[in-house]
């Protein structure tokens, strides 16, 4: 099957992300990358856990965190994970328009999350919780900020894919790209689940 071949719903394979060798490589390579990312975030988490009480006179986690904000952000990101599942669902059904639509919603939700995070950081900075204040601040901003950077990169990536492929529809060349981008998006969500648990919730109970 040639990668650029025009396909129909009937000829479109059940697992388009793995239908070509390039797709298979991408799929596997990306999963392996996520394995490495797991260790990367683990190192950030571990450091945060080791340093979270070292506030050096600055505000502590309990005084600082805005839980309602975090709750809304969490809901946005969790929902965006579901919407990207919908996008892939429509990709597998060879429904390009609906896929684009759901990816579009995902991007909006992700942008909302990112906006909240920037707002949140801004609030914290105003309360004196700046990056250079303490080991707690440094490790907090680096951990949550690295996740935020991942969200931002994910948004740009999905947007690029959507715009680039808007006119040409689905084929076996771009299907793996969409699939992999959605894997990335889920992984971001996985990391966030641990961030809101370990950083925010555990920050509230000590």
């Amino acid at each position, binding site marked *: 099957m040639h990668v650029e071949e025009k396909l129909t719903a009937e000829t479109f394979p059940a697992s388009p992300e793995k239908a070509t060798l390039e797709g298979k490589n991408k799929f*596997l390579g990306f999963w392996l*990358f996520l394995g490495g990312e797991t260790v990367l975030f683990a190192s950030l988490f571990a450091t945060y856990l080791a340093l979270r009480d070292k506030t050096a006179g600055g505000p502590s986690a309990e005084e600082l965190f805005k839980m309602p904000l975090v709750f809304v952000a969490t809901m946005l990101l969790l929902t965006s994970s579901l919407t990207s599942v919908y996008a892939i669902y429509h990709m597998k059904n060879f429904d390009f328009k609906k896929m684009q639509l759901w990816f579009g919603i995902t991007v909006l939700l992700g942008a909302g999350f990112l906006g909240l995070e920037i707002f949140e950081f801004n609030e914290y900075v105003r309360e004196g919780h700046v990056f250079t204040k303490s*080991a707690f601040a*440094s490790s907090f901003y680096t951990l949550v900020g690295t996740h935020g950077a991942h969200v931002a990169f994910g948004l740009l990536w999905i947007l690029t894919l959507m715009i680039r492929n808007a006119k040409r529809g689905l084929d076996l060349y771009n299907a793996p790209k969409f699939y992999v981008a959605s894997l990335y998006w889920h992984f971001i969500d996985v990391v966030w689940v641990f961030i809101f648990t370990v950083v925010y919730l555990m920050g509230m109970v000590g």
Partner: protein
Amino acid sequence: MSTLARKKGVGAVIWDYLTTVDHKKIAILYLIAGGFFFLIGGLEALFIRIQLAKPNNDFLVGGLYNQVLTMHGTTMIFLAAMPLVFAMMNAVVPIQIGARDVAFPFLNALGFWLFFFGGVFLNLSWFLGGAPDAGWTSYASLSLESPGHGIDFYVLGLQISGFGTLMGGINFLVTIINMRAPGMTYMRMPMFTWATFVTSALILFAFPPLTVGLIFMMMDRLFGGNFYNPAGGGNTIIWEHLFWIFGHPEVYILVLPAFGIFSEIFATFSKKRLFGYSSMVFATVLIGFLGFMVWAHHMFTVGMGPIANAIFAVATMAIAVPTGIKIFNWLFTMWGGNIRFTTPMLYAVAFIPSFVMGGVTGVMNAAAAADYQYHDSYFVVAHFHYVIVGGVVFALLAGAHYWWPKMFGKMLNETLGKITFWLFFIGFHLTFFIQHFLGLMGMPRRVFTYLPGQGLETGNLISTVGAFFMAAATIVLLVNVVITTAKGQKAEADAWGDGRTLEWAVASPPPEYNFAQTPLVRGLDALWIEKMEGKKGLTPAEPLGDIHMPNPSILPFIISLGLFIAAFGFMYHNEYSWGLFVGIGGLLITLGSMFLRSVIDDHGFHIHKEEVLEAEKGVKA
């Protein structure tokens, strides 16, 4: 589009190498760059030994000595050993598994250029105010105190080249998992391929902690972070843990491919299949696995307490078991064989006693209570040089001689090769054996001098003499390379006549598509099986047809260049107002190139059947 047998100008050749995505050419790039850094690192080693030749010497004093010592370690590990290992992997692994290329040719090129620019960046420190001076381990308290930009070069340079290595690791994993020829099951893969597989997995999990550690150090030094700064609540031990969570697996990242290279050489020149192949595979995987459980044995004297020390001591000792299995398997591969002492085989044979020495001192170091004496003394210096030189460097030299005909199409001169070997072998033991005793006699590591009357003079002098032997060996090797390139003997496909694995079935050097027809693998040592059945070539698994090839691209070079520029910008952003702009500009170059890569479709091209036929005829004739 085929580049076969076409005469080109110098400019075209350079452009070809700047844009290549062919794993064989990337292997050559790794070999040249790694070899160049190996010479620099070796020169630094020589300077160290000259300074220590006699007590109170004043050849390299204080801070400058520390810079040379730091750069020697950093260069040898990150810029010489690793890329040379990657050179071997790139040159051999895809062919060994019967593939036309790696899974991600573009990433492969990107990996090389990232490593290269990272290495160049690091070495530019010599000309821009001084090199890093806190040792290759760059422990946080000292590296935060270190004035100037030396440590910033270390932090940024290693981050850039570390990304390259991580990409290489993922690339080889996917290649080995997805691209094997029909019939090449996991348990039929050559040992070197297995070693590459496990090594790549280690890279995948070991480099992220290093990246994180380096990011923290960058934040602390350049952006006012407090990760390692006790005044702000930070903790220097975090760096030590992150560094060694990476650093210990790194040892295996280097030594497992070495084991793989020797496994190939032992089998080839004993004319026997590898003894206990499945236990060799098992041992490799087990070493890789245990490699992640033992990092804290580098930190026995930090004050982790007896419980942690005891746990890590016992875990470390456990690694000796699979390593021992390997040693005996190699011995019994030779047992009953018909051993030919070619240059690569000499290295392989010499490796056994040398590496066993390094291994047993490793177990001695694992005994935590006794390690309080060895730690940070010359005993440790001796130990890890026995492992890394006696294991890794021997393997790289052996592999270079062994696969040189495959990579370049010409046989290295055997007489010169053997002279290199003997000089290097004698020099190596002369230099490092005595260092065990220097350490036990109370000489700490990383000292730029020692006082007379402490019983350390003789040992140090002997050690320095040995270093010159190794330098002489390197010069002979270079001469050999030049002579061979000028008028070497042309190599056949099965250059040594005893080849067992697939790389010896294709022409030397291989055509850019490796295999005209993907081979069918019918067992371990696929070529050997065919040869024993009296066949000339491999059994093809597909009819002859058009071959799909990836397009060359300059983007990997530009992406890496962008990060190189960005690193300069961020490093100087505290002193010069242009710093931040340059930093962001560099990042934009990188991101822009990545964007281009993403939006421009790249479907590669095809080499047509007729062209392949033509090329194959040329080889046979």
